């Protein structure tokens, strides 16, 4: 079973979703929680089996699909994908456990389980075609969730979401095909295996084109400025569970793909595009933070804050050194936890008042103290306070990029200022002051179902902020392998210089660990 | 020399015949011109040594297809001129001409010919018909059978489609009844459209 654990992880939810159709309507919730819990424990078991000292892929499975073109079902995990997979199972569990939706619960749970399959599939896939298939498949359940359970503008939002991301991924597909064709030209064999592609050193000009093609697909998913406008609509219209999964997991697909595809495949192009992308990332950070500050709807604040944080992640990825990339991977997890929690929290108040406008609230801290406390903790985590989960990632990402450019980091660092501005002012508007709105006078504090979802998130947010080592270590090892690969593959002088060579400093590392 | 004369002669004849077919407003002229054109085309096949194909051309086109057309035209009023609304006749000619010029250009341009090997080389020792038979019943057997079935299907389809209401003979019916029949079918149509 151990050698097939990844396949089980990927297809168990889908299988369970199929069986979900025959489960009775009243017991489907319990069924969903059970399935998600089993899946979550499976993923924890995967973590337990995972060897943190190995940098390469583990639990690889291979089955040829179209052998003529070298397409095969190839999956595996390393330190980078492992925790995002666990995050996916974790959030599916939390999402189903704290589900407050009343309409067509059965369909929703089946959709979520199907979505879980696609998410894990994306992060486990090591074959470009398999990756692409899961990548696109993940759109469908999300489209369905937004379109069927969303707000009044749900059709517009879901179509925008779908078409936008779909357009990007088509360009990406073209890139993938060309990459495979190039591989064929170079080796005489077709292969879509990423691990095979890694071995290929592409000419710099081809790298540029391919990088651009992949970039569009990933950038829209992230979403990077100026391709971000689908996100506020999607979040604004999606039901709570949709926003949670979207923010926590789906956005990470883009940044994950940057690390998995763009960096190791096109090291020279990555270095060449580093500063343009850094500028985009800085725009994302500052601009999204400003827009978030101007919002009137609390969910939009969180939505734009996601964009702002994704900017930091991008910056970390393109720092091209171990500190920065490790930080950005960690920040993906961190942002998943924090933004997921914030969306859940917004959902709590939306369930009670059916509005998300901050002007409708005020003084909630005295009516709902526990809610305000949890929101406060998560807000502080989002702002990046040390000893919360976000800080570790944010610090490492910025630290990493500082190596590449001092002035850019200084500007990007304003993230910690502008982030505090919009978050604190939103918190102030919603929670502080006196209760002016009659409707808020008798609001109930968070109930047990909601706490079931929120408390684990708070625990994780603080636990990983204080003790990030269990995650950082495997991530670090895998990232080191990627950085070394990039350094070895780099052709231009600039890339050689910008990407550190770890093989020389290996001795230095061990002495440092010794003391 | 003889080949050249024959080619140019038949080329000119074919072009004239087909031009008439396309341009005339008399259906009968068009039919006749086309039948003639078909026969002239078979001449090319004979020149090219494809005797069997030439024979088929005459039999199938002039014998069968033209006969079907002739029968078909009996349903329509062929004595009158075909009245057609023309829109942008120049445009049509320019477009057709342009397509021709382009294809000619492609044909005349040096085609990169890299050792095309004949799959089924022509063996001059064997007669054309025999050779055709050899190829047709070995390599192209399945397509041949399929074509045969297709023809059968087409034949039945033609009969079924054209044979509707064949129990009523339009030639023997009184004028009023025909008008009545047309009217009822017209209402049928309007009903269908209503759906």
């Amino acid at each position: 079973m151990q050698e097939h654990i990844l396949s089980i992880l990927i297809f168990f939810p889908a299988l369970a979703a199929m069986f979900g159709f025959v489960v009775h309507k009243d017991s489907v919730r319990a069924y969903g929680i059970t399935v998600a819990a089993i899946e979550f424990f499976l993923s924890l078991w995967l973590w337990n089996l995972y060897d943190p000292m190995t940098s390469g892929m583990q639990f690889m499975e291979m089955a040829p699909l179209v052998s003529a073109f070298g397409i095969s079902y190839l999956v595996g995990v390393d330190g980078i994908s492992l925790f995002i997979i666990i995050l996916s199972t974790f959030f599916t569990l939390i999402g189903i456990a704290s589900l407050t939706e009343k309409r067509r619960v059965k369909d929703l749970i089946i959709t979520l389980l199907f979505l879980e399959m696609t998410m894990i599939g994306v992060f486990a896939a090591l074959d470009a075609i398999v990756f692409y298939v899961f990548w696109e498949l993940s759109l469908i359940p999300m489209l369905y969730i937004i379109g069927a359970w969303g707000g009044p503008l749900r059709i517009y939002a879901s179509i925008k979401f779908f078409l936008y991301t779909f357009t990007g991924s088509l360009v990406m597909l073209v890139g993938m095909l060309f990459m495979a064709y190039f591989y064929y030209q170079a080796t005489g064999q077709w292969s879509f295996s990423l691990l095979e592609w890694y071995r290929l050193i592409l000419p710099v000009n081809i790298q540029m084109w391919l990088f651009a093609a992949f970039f569009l697909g990933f950038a829209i998913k992230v979403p990077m400025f100026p391709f971000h406008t689908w996100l506020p609509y999607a979040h604004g219209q999606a039901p709570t569970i949709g926003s949670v999964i979207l923010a926590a997991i789906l956005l990470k697909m883009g940044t994950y793909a940057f690390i998995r595809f763009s960096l190791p495949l096109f090291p020279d192009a990555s270095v060449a595009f580093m500063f343009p992308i850094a500028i985009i990332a800085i725009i994302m950070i500052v601009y999204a933070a400003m827009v978030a500050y101007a919002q009137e709807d609390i969910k939009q604040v969180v939505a734009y804050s996601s964009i702002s944080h994704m900017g930091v992640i991008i910056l970390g990825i393109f720092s091209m050194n171990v500190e920065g990339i490790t930080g950005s991977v960690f920040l993906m997890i961190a942002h998943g936890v924090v933004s997921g929690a914030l969306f859940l929290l917004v959902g709590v108040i939306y369930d009670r008042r059916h509005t998300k406008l901050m002007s409708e609230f005020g003084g909630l801290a005295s009516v709902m103290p526990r809610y305000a406390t949890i929101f406060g903790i998560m807000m502080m985590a989002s702002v990046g306070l040390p000893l919360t989960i976000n800080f570790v990632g944010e610090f490492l990402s910025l630290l990493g990029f500082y190596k590449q450019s001092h002035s850019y980091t200084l500007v990007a660092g304003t993230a910690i200022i502008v982030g505090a501005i919009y978050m604190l002012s939103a918190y102030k508007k919603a929670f502080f002051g006196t209760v002016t709105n009659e409707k808020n006078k008798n609001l109930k504090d968070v109930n047990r179902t909601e706490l079931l979802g929120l408390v684990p998130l708070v625990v994780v947010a603080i636990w990983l902020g204080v003790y990030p080592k269990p995650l950082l270590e495997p991530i670090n090892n895998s990232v080191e392998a990627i950085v070394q690969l990039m350094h070895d593959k780099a052709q231009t002088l600039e890339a050689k210089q910008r990407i550190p060579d770890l093989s020389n400093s290996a001795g230095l590392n061990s002495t440092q660990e010794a003391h | 020399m003889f080949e050249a004369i024959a080619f140019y002669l038949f080329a000119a004849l074919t072009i004239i015949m087909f031009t008439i077919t396309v341009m005339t407003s008399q259906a009968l002229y068009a039919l006749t011109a086309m039948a003639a054109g078909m026969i002239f085309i078979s001449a090319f096949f004979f020149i090219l040594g494809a005797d069997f194909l030439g024979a088929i051309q005459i039999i199938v086109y002039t014998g069968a297809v033209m006969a079907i057309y002739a029968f078909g035209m009996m349903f329509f009023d062929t004595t009158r001129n075909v009245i057609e609304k023309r829109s942008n006749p120049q445009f049509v000619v320019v477009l057709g001409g342009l397509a021709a010029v382009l294809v000619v250009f492609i044909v005349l341009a040096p085609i990169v010919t890299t050792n095309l090997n004949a799959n089924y080389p022509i063996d001059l020792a064997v007669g054309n018909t025999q050779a055709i038979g050899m190829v047709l019943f070995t390599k192209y057997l399945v397509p041949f059978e399929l074509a045969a079935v297709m023809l059968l299907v087409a034949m039945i389809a033609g009969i079924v489609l054209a044979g509707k209401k064949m129990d009523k003979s339009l030639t023997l019916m009184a004028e009023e009844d025909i008008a009545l029949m047309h009217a009822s079918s017209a209402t049928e149509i309007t009903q269908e459209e209503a759906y």
Partner: protein
Amino acid sequence: MEVYLYIALFAPLVGSLFAALFGAAPKTYLTGIAASGLLFTSFVSSAILLNYVLAGHTVHVEMMTWIAAGDLYIPFGFVVDQVSVTMMMVVSVVSTVVHVYSIGYMAHDKGFNRFFSYLSAFVFSMMVLVMSDNFLGLFIGWEGVGLCSWLLIGFWYHKESATWAANEAFIMNRIADLAMLIGIFMLYWNLGSLQYDVVFANIATLPMHIITWIGIFLFIGAMGKSAQFPLHTWLADAMEGPTPVSALIHAATMVTAGVYLVVRANPIYGLIPEVGIVIASLGAFVALFAASMALVNRDMKRIIAYSTLSQLGYMFVAAGLGAYWVALFHLMAHAFFKALLFLGAGNVMHAMHDELDPFKMGGLKKSMKWTWILMTLASVALAGIYPLAGFFSKDLILEVAFVEHHYVLYTVLLLTAGLTAFYSFRLVALIFHGNERHLEHGIHPHEAYTFMLYAMAPLGVLAVIAGMAFKTPYYLMVTHLLPAMTYHIHNHTTFWIMTIGTQLFVIAAITYAYKKYAKAVKVDKKVESGLLYQLLYNQYFIPKIYDEVFSKPYLKLSKLAWKEIDLKIVDATVDGIANIIYQTGEKTHTMQDGNLSSMLRWMVIGLVVLLVLAVAFTAGYNAVNLQAM
């Protein structure tokens, strides 16, 4: 000794978590007493550690790894050495006193339990800040105290002004924190470590301009926390918080963290005296600047806050001139008497039903005798009259400036000393002497609970003796770590002239203050409408300028970014592209008119287009190939 270190560090955290358990529960004295008890434990542990350190040892422990990525390795490491133990003593003493005091002060507040939770959390963060053995650990504490400060300033969250002030404090501190992070980044990429010992051992190997930049960035970080100009406005506004908070956080401990940072990083600043001069000049400027605002203010707590600001300026002058131990010494002495002053102000506020305008008080010495005595004591110490604490620490800074030949700084500081004496006693005179103006408002003051006064007593004692008794042993201890510089004016005549001159100047200022305000308060309309008065009263219009130049335009810009750029440009472009495609379909669907003939024409057009493309591409391909050949 490690056990004591952990007790000293984690006892406040335990207290905080314990109080947090009762966060939503109704008020129970248990939380206050437990938190105070645990802090006392922390204090005792700190004292034991102090004893240990006095014997010449230091304690350095590494609890566990925190962040390890790439070459970066940051543990939770704690060090107790001469500098940090001084801070630990200051923090634990003042916070224990403030905790006990708060049991009385907050007795009637609904958020009693919550308050103790926050307050103890603050002490924990402060302990982390001073005990950490690396820069990032310091940063944890740095942000932690920022968070607690936010929570405590906004403690009465239903007040708009309180929450606004809380956010202002947090955001302003964040601005400085960014600079500090950049400083940390520079240290890491240049030295490969953030541990104090590694950094300080290798800092001299770096090129000068990098050290300078590191020094500048770290100092900007310190400026935020210590509310130096131009990041000073939050401190006065922070007075919206409960008074014990002001005493602990915004007078004694947190705001001095900046000074602590500069002192701690003295091996860096020792290499860059030019930056030191800038720090000292800024400190002197802030000292005078803040004192001038305190002269006319009519809000008791704000006056004390400006006084704090002014004294922080003094500390930075000392630190900037390389007299690190002097800065730390003044930090300690100041913590005692300023906390005392604030707690006294708290008593007055309670008695006056939260009235803050001293012009509406007066003659309180009758009903609040002990408060009067303690506050007067604190004010005397603040003014720097022999033999109280302020004399030893503050006059020392004047001497430092003099000995180092920075006569401009010296003059400014001397002038400020006079102003300090004046506004301190203006406050004392207005509150405790003269007519009982508060009777007009129907307020009948009463003395605070006795145990609160007892709680304040240790601070009173320390304010008196801290300078006299501690100076020499402290100097001997702390110079193990800090540069041992003695500042003696060699010429005895000059020394005596200076000392006595300063004393006389200060006494003159006190006398003037008493004379002007002790009897009857005459409001001089002409002075008040004067430009200078208006300037000072409105804090040089700086908050207003910030509001106009930064806050409002930022909000406007944000609205613009959202409504105009995001919705009307970025999103509209996307929608526009979609619309173009949609419109194209809408326009061209007439092509599908169902007429076979026109469809055939379209087909032929398509054919022609394809043929053209074929010809063009073939020609292009051939051209390229021919070229290649």
